[in-house]
């Protein structure tokens, strides 16, 4: 009995493949639509998770760069003494002094413009105090502290260094949410596409279904070929989606690497991980089966005697 059951499944599987092959254009269209519906959120997901990883790496301890004036109406400013005064603020955890000479040295090392810098008649950099706030992860407080420091009489400007990173994180979160919404919409799209394909299949085989019902075929038996349509179409769609996703990420690889070099970063988008590939493949295939099942069952209700 198990052997017969297995043979029957195998037969239906190949029969369904054959049927899909008989209408190649329609089957290809369905496969393509499903592939796009999967690939689109997936590529976005891959990009957004990589950027997210990157910003987590860059996070570090928050700091505020406080550029000092060299002169006020009351005379010259002593950077060390200014640092002491900043430390009296309870929101300031630590202060580190970077003299204009140190700053210029660091800059010429990092930028590679040594020759140009040596040609400068005088050091253009202001004295710098790096302030480590006691605000911890609180982005708003750090940003407020920067504003507060900027308004001190001996301070020229105060820049909260992580500000842009927090903006990036906020943006990434927006895109992440958009990917989730997109994934749901695409899932609904797949549901509709499969439902439509199955409905068409039922219409084409209405007389066959009626006869099978009359000679004592069970619901399970009638349902089976349509469940296979859902499963096979979704599986084919997923396979094509991996091809599309892989190709897209491959095409992004070089430009992103170039961009990353400009920022002296090792950043790369990479490829979708194997567990994600497996999970998406299984979930989408099950989604196809579910969509097919709902559609067939809605039709089978009509076959019940009344």
């Amino acid at each position, binding site marked *: *009995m198990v*052997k*017969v*059951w297995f*043979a*029957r499944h195998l037969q239906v599987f190949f029969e369904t493949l054959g049927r899909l092959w008989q209408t190649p254009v329609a089957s290809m269209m369905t496969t393509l639509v499903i592939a796009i519906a999967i690939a689109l959120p997936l590529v976005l997901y891959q990009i957004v998770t990589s950027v997210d990883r990157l910003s987590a790496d860059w996070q570090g301890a928050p700091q505020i760069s406080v550029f000092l004036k060299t002169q006020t109406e009351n005379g010259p400013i002593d950077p060390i003494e200014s640092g002491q005064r900043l430390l009296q603020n309870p929101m300031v955890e630590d202060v580190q002094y970077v003299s204009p000479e140190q700053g210029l040295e660091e800059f010429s090392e990092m930028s590679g413009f040594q020759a140009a810098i040596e040609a400068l008649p005088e050091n253009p950099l202001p004295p710098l105090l790096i302030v480590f706030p006691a605000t911890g992860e609180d982005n708003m407080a750090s940003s407020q502290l920067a504003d507060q420091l900027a308004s001190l009489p001996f301070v020229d400007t105060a820049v909260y260094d992580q500000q842009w990173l927090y903006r990036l994180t906020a943006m990434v979160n927006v895109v992440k949410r958009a990917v989730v919404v997109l994934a749901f919409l695409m899932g609904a799209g797949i549901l509709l596409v499969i439902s439509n394909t199955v409905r068409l299949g039922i219409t084409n085989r209405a*007389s*066959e279904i*009626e*006869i*099978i*019902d*009359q*000679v*004592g*075929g*069970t*619901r*399970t*038996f009638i349902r089976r070929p349509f469940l296979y349509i859902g499963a096979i179409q979704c599986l084919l769609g997923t396979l094509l989606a991996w091809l599309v996703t892989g190709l897209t990420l491959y095409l992004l690889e070089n430009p992103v690497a170039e961009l990353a070099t400009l920022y002296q970063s090792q950043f790369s988008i990479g490829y979708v991980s194997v567990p994600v590939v497996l999970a998406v493949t299984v979930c989408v295939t099950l989604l196809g089966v579910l969509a097919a099942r709902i559609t067939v069952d809605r039709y089978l209700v009509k076959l019940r*005697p*009344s």
Partner: protein
Amino acid sequence: MIRFSQVSKRYPNGHDALNDISFFLPKGSFTFLTGHSGAGKSTLLKLITLTELASRGQVLVSDKNLSKLGGNKIAAHRRTIGSVFQDHKLLEDRTVEDNVSLPLVVAGVDHSEIRRRVRAALDKVGLLNKAKRYPITLSGGEQQRVGIARAVVGRPKILLADEPTGNLDPALADEIMQLFLNFNQVDITVLIATHDYRQIDRFDCGILSLTNGRLQNHEGDNA
């Protein structure tokens, strides 16, 4: 085998197709169901196959109350019945043998057993040499014989036929009827709906006669 007790059937549009029908068909009996067009013959057969449910009364087949069956029990019940239709209801895109094998395939019968029984059934109706043909390439009488082979291949206890000779000339109709008689001899309960009175007169058997959904005389009635 088949027992109707005060059965009525009202279609959803309010039409009363059958009214207070009671009869009993014993195991192995051979009965004609007659009546004018629209008398309710097809409806009565559909109540036996559970294609339709009785609105009132009880239909018992092999001591099972059909109104109590649901889900897969309905399918199992239909597998104990062989049905022959006036329009054959064959699948045009399948060969004769694939059409005949359908009841065995849905019953989950083993592949080699299916082959054997399909050949036996086709042999009985004299179509063994046309097993690989498509229904469309066969004559009306041959198509009807394919339908009969499909009806008996599952070794049903009951054989129902809805105007099986309706579209056939008299000689072919006689042939088809003879087939049904042969099957009746192996203890199958046979019920044939027809308005071909020539056939009825040829055979000495039970008759259920319907007029406007009511039973007229019931020969062979033990109810």
